[in-house]
């Protein structure tokens, strides 16, 4: 395996809590046009394959991939959907270029979460239909159970989790695309309504609408087309057990194994020293800390104290979620991982505006598919 692949274009539209003025097709179109313009490519002429990510139930349409080609300029071209996290789709596009059969591939992910009237009921349909669904429990109980287990095993506190919320929402104030930036304190999170102990309402990210498109190219084409290609140096993805009864409840094994695969590929031995920023899933406050530990940014139990020390803030030793993460930007359903990756690209290009970090060369993005899954993907980029 010797081919090198870079991101040569990114485009996005949103991210907003509500988008009554545009359809999902218009969101996708805007993101696609921006990405193609950024990359300097014509989708009809230059792009050889397209990957999209979507799930039927959140779209309200069966076989949703029917509705993706037109607004991407992809009709009568190779197009397929990965029903996975945005980063799974990204990796699928990357692999197609690695084969040598393709040189330029685009990936798309979007969220029109505001169209979903009953998101918790949809989520309940993701539970095992034989063993778990008959219990008729709100799926968020899984996050409560897992958070409790994580806090108990690592000695992490609810206050430390609340600090993650405060940090990410604060970072989001510097991100013009973020929907949920705010100046809040630990007390605000601790005092918010309890959803499933110890998970409170403000420990959870809120959904936002938006779309993200990225264009990937082989080294040859990337150097021809782009002045600032961002190189993909490692990818990894993994599932743990889907069954609630047999999964590991504390360690986020999927993140550990996805990270291990990506680090091995990128030749990274000490992530904390070698990474300059990390954008990792924070669907729930504790998930940022749990994922930091699983991804070996620190040892188990250290993520909370590091957050207290400010090590993961914008000016800290290893900024985590400088974009504001899902807690600050808004959770974009399966496009969330692409939003994490988008921030890494912007930071490595030096285009992150007010929140730009100095001297960044290597960044990690990690996405998790959310409840009730144990599915995650990691991507490492270098400029």
């Amino acid at each position: 395996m010797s081919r090198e692949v870079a991101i040569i274009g990114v485009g996005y539209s949103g991210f907003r809590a509500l988008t009554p003025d545009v359809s999902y097709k218009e969101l996708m179109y805007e993101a696609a046009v921006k990405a193609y313009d950024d990359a300097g490519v014509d989708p009809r002429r230059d792009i050889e394959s397209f990957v999209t990510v979507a799930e039927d139930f959140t779209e309200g349409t069966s076989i949703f991939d029917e509705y993706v080609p037109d607004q991407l300029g992809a009709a009568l071209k190779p197009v397929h959907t990965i029903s996975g996290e945005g980063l799974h789709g990204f990796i699928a596009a990357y692999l197609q270029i690695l084969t040598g059969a393709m040189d330029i591939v685009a990936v798309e992910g979007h969220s029109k979460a505001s169209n979903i009237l009953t998101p918790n009921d949809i989520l309940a349909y993701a539970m095992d239909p034989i063993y778990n669904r008959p219990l008729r429990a709100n799926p968020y109980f899984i996050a409560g159970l897992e958070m409790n287990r994580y806090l108990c095993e690592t000695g992490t506190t609810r206050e430390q989790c609340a600090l993650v919320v405060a940090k990410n929402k604060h970072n989001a104030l510097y991100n013009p695309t973020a929907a949920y930036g705010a100046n809040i304190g630990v007390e605000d999170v601790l005092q918010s309504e309890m959803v499933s102990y110890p998970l409170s309402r403000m420990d959870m990210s809120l959904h936002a609408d938006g779309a993200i498109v990225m264009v990937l190219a082989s080294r040859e084409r990337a150097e021809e087309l782009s002045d600032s290609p961002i190189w993909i140096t490692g990818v990894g993805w993994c599932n743990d057990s889907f069954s609630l009864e047999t999964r590991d409840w504390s360690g986020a094994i999927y993140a550990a194994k996805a990270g291990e695969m990506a680090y091995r590929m990128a030749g990274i031995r000490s992530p904390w020293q070698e990474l300059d920023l990390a954008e990792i899933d924070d669907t729930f406050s504790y998930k940022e800390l749990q994922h930091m530990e699983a991804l070996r940014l620190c040892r188990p139990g250290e993520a909370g104290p590091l957050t207290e020390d400010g090590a993961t803030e914008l000016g800290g030793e290893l900024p985590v979620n400088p974009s504001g993460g899902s807690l600050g930007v808004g959770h974009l359903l399966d496009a969330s991982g692409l939003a994490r990756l988008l921030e890494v690209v912007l930071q490595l290009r030096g285009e992150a505006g007010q929140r730009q970090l100095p001297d960044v060369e290597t960044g990690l993005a990690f996405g998790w598919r959310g409840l009730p899954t144990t599915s995650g993907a990691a991507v490492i980029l270098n400029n």
Partner: protein
Amino acid sequence: MSLRKVAVVGAGMTKFVRRAQETGKELAYEAAKMALDSCELKLDDVDGVALGTAPDAFDGVHMKGEYLSDGAGAWRKPFMRSYVGGGTGVFTPIQGWYHVASGLFDVCLVVCEEKMSSCQPHPQGAFLTIFDHTTERPLGPNLLWIFALEMNRYMHMHGLQKKDIALVSVKNKRNAADHPCALLGDPNITVEDVLNSEVLAWPVQRLDVSPVTDGAVALVLAAENVAKRITDKPVWIKGVGWALDTAYWTNRDLYYPKYVEYAARMAYEMAGIREPRKEIHIVEPYDPFDYKELHHLEGLLLADKGEAPRLTAEGVTARTGDMPVCPSGGLLGVGNPIAAAGLMKVAEIFWQLRGEAGKRQVPGKPVTGLAQAWGDLMQVGTVIILGIGG
């Protein structure tokens, strides 16, 4: 640049049945286990899993791929589910191909599962939600109606009669009588039976259509160096292609599947095939309806437009003909558990090229075969070409 060679080294398949007692997860497990056993590998030898399964609405399970993942062997492994509607069954091995051809994996397990029977009262209900929510769904269209439109258009353009097309159903259901996993094999069926069956939406009649089915199929893919250690008879993936046409199907002329032609051309080019009619020895085109086999043979450039019915009538596409088509029995005979049905076609080519197809074995030692699937709103073509030697 030359591509990393990828081989199919093992295959497994559950029985195709109308209503399986097993859960979808169990079906996926059974097929995956059989495929691994067939090439004497263990789950530990597998680097990652590619899964295919069609609409979540069949099972009523959101994120169905995640639900099936551990059953399909993806516990603590890289796992992705690809999805192109009815084209999924032939796309998933393409996904497996790029996993291995990328150099990241040496061994990839490809699993396709479908359990349609959970959908009550009839799985056709799941298809009511595939239409555009603004422009089409208010009209209450159903899948059989739009395929009736397409069949009508195809017949009209080429001046065909129902009896020309019914021959396909008869051939495939008779072929399926020799398939141990088949749901609707019938050695005695006649054209009259098809023509006299209940009309569903003219010109589509009951026996023009494949049945609702539960089942799963799995393949094991391996990179060249590993494949040669696993088996003496690797079957190489010579070419892959896929294409998705516009969602606005009402703006297209339905008599010819241009997207299938685009997918086929991509696969032929990768396989270095210039004269497909001479170089492809057996074909498994997607046949959820009898006219679709004909439609697809033309899209695959294996017959001139409107000529596929003549090839069928002349016996060219019979199991003992010059170009056997659907020697497995196809979806019309073996059954149509959507994603699993597509992968069944790829498995059939694998078994035929290895000379392991038992009573279904075509004569003449075929060297190259093609499997194709189709789906979405008469919109997507997926093509894979397998070959031995070279």
